[in-house]
């Protein structure tokens, strides 16, 4: 653990050095852009001359006669290009582990901790100018696990995002560094995104790291074209499966809609093709769909000729399959939203294959000893979703209003008839302190996805808004 901590610190140090190098490059680019701007101004004689007097006219004083405390900065003052946001989260989770799990008998395989304590420090720092943005989002995450893996404490220091964004022209932006490259309107999963299919759903409280990439975006009226090259998969994803992936994405924006097409040749040779579309109908309705076709890095299949200790084989990469999602959301007059989504994931098991998956695991359980590694494989390399057909229902409050925020949802596996109920709520107890809680309850047969390892989990925590 000590060597792991030193390794993390070395990575953090390298990251800081890289950030400094980026900052120097950015300063050089900014200085060059400033010089180009001054030359353009001297050459142009037709640009309209707009100026703003942000102070009051006549007897009116806009910044001091508003009701309540006047918080607007004094007229004439210049907004700072720096913004900082510092949050400290602390929360504890109690998990109810299924002792009779076929995949994790007696919790001997996964060693799922019964209790988790997490301290999560999140800083968002940004420098924004007319042509250049610098963003750094360092994270310090310490997790203490009890029961299952007794006494395991881990600490992660990393950059969730750290990038330079340069706008050489008003319609072009170049981004270099670690950046969140996420898109798609869906809540349950994102089939249109080859990197973020999960979209943080399996661990909703954890911050999702960006990808190490270079990208360029050009806007031409209603169309937005993005080209990117992903060098590394970022902090969160083991095995670096997204390395050396090129992406071409074309968005077309209408008055009430947007559609996007994505093509991404991946490092293992196969090409991801996908896209999404969403439309606003009237004031309250939102409809959307996502689709993606690809070969995944691997697929766990039942062995054709199983032996006592080998019940599965790994197909590398997987066969090509399509995932698709259709969704609809309705916003009530009070701002609450009702959402429903149907998902089909072709990379999941058909019903017979899922039964075989659990049957093989039960046979391995009976062997004990040498079968443990195979059971670990069954758990760790299972499909991203075990089955193929899912229904998701969500009801949530207006996120823009102050006070209490809540959401309640249900995810159902329509193939194996299991599901998960989820509740989440936040309450602002003070200007800088929010209490929150989350509850998940899994239900269904033991040989089904949602009830196969956990009965549920309860989390209670607090967020402190420092800056």
């Amino acid at each position, binding site marked *: 653990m000590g060597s792991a901590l030193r390794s993390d610190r070395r990575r953090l140090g390298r990251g800081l050095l890289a950030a400094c190098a980026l900052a120097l490059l950015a300063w050089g680019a900014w200085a060059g852009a400033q010089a180009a701007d001054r030359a353009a101004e001297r050459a142009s004689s037709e640009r309209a001359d707009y100026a*703003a007097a942000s102070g009051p006219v006549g007897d009116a004083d806009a910044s001091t006669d508003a009701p309540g405390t006047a918080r607007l900065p004094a007229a004439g003052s210049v907004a700072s290009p720096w913004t900082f946001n510092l949050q400290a989260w602390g929360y504890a989770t109690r998990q109810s582990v299924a002792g009779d799990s076929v995949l994790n008998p007696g919790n001997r395989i996964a060693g799922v901790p019964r209790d988790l304590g997490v301290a999560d420090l999140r800083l968002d720092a940004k420098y924004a100018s007319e042509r250049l943005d610098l963003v750094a989002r360092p994270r310090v995450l310490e997790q203490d696990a009890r029961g299952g893996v007794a006494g395991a404490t881990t600490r992660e220091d990393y950059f969730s995002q750290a990038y330079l964004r340069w706008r050489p022209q008003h319609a072009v932006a170049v981004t270099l560094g670690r950046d969140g490259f996420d898109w798609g309107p869906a809540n349950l999963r994102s089939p249109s995104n080859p990197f973020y299919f999960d979209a943080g759903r399996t661990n909703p409280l954890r911050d999702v790291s960006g990808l190490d990439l270079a990208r360029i975006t050009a806007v031409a009226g209603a169309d937005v074209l993005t080209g990117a090259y992903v060098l590394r998969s970022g902090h969160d994803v083991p095995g670096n499966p997204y390395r050396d992936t090129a992406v071409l994405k074309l968005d077309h924006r209408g008055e009430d809609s947007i559609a996007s097409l994505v093509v991404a040749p991946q490092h293992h040779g196969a090409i991801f093709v996908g896209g999404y579309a969403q439309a606003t109908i009237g004031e309250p309705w939102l409809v959307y769909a996502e689709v993606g076709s690809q070969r995944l890095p691997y697929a766990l299949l039942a062995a054709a000729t199983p032996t006592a200790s080998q019940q599965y084989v790994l197909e590398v990469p997987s066969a090509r399959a399509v995932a698709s999602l259709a969704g609809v959301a309705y916003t009530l007059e*009070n701002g609450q939203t009702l959402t429903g989504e149907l998902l089909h994931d072709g990379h999941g098991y058909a019903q017979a294959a899922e039964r075989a998956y659990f049957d093989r695991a039960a046979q391995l359980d009976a062997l004990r000893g040498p079968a443990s590694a195979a059971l670990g494989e069954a758990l760790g390399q299972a499909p991203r979703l075990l089955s193929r057909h899912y229904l998701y229902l969500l009801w949530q409050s207006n996120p823009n209003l102050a006070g209490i925020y809540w959401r309640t949802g249900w995810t159902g596996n329509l193939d194996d008839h299991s599901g998960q109920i989820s509740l989440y709520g936040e309450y602002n107890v003070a200007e800088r302190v929010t209490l929150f809680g989350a509850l998940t309850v899994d239900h269904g047969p033991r040989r089904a996805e949602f009830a196969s390892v956990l009965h549920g989990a309860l989390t209670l925590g607090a967020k402190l808004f420092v800056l």
Partner: protein
Amino acid sequence: MSLSLARRAALAVLAAAALAPHPASAEPDADMILAQSDRARGGGLPGITWDVQADSTGGDEDKAGTHMLLRVSAADNSSVSETLEPVRQKGARMLNVDRVMWLTRPGLKKPVPISPRQRLTGQAAVGDIAATNYVQDYAPRLDRADACGARRCWVLELTAKAKNTTYDRILYWVTVDGNTAARAEFYSVSGKLLKSADFEYGNAIEFGGRKLPFVSRMVIRDALSTATTTLAYAHIKVQKIPSTEFDVGHLD
């Protein structure tokens, strides 16, 4: 007695002048009035940034009221706002491109699409903090002239051009001498009054070589309750906004 030819000609000219429509009494152009009033609220400009302080009382807000400070960039029918206060909502951003909207905030995994029905805060909708382009979304008709305080106003009836516009009908009081909106009443398709707003113009911008008044405050009142939201606008800067600012892929 007969008149001389010269006197008859002079009388004919005077009669013609009396009967001819006077330029000052010609029907005002409702489209032009609306376009000019939009400019005093951010419309028709190449781009604009400003800070908006929103204070709400009554209605769904708690008894202490709520306060928000936002930094807004807007151009044409697009706007992006970032929450600066309160601190627990700091960093939240909302993007609006025509009628498609997204919200993101620290802790969210990715921008989420939201409906235009989502209110920003209190009685304020997203359109109240962004640049106003009523001339694009509404067909104006000059209804009448009316008094608005110590001034005279044209009253325009604005009818939504499309079904998906936020309000189906607006009554809009625009000052005759300044072409700035003084008051608005917002109606549903059934004719029910939803809310009303009053405007002040304590700011100024320079545009086309002239100094023009610009909105400094908007007070929005709910028609069915005591809920009120006051928007105060400051740090107005007219500048072209990079179009990449309105790309959801950069909403982070």
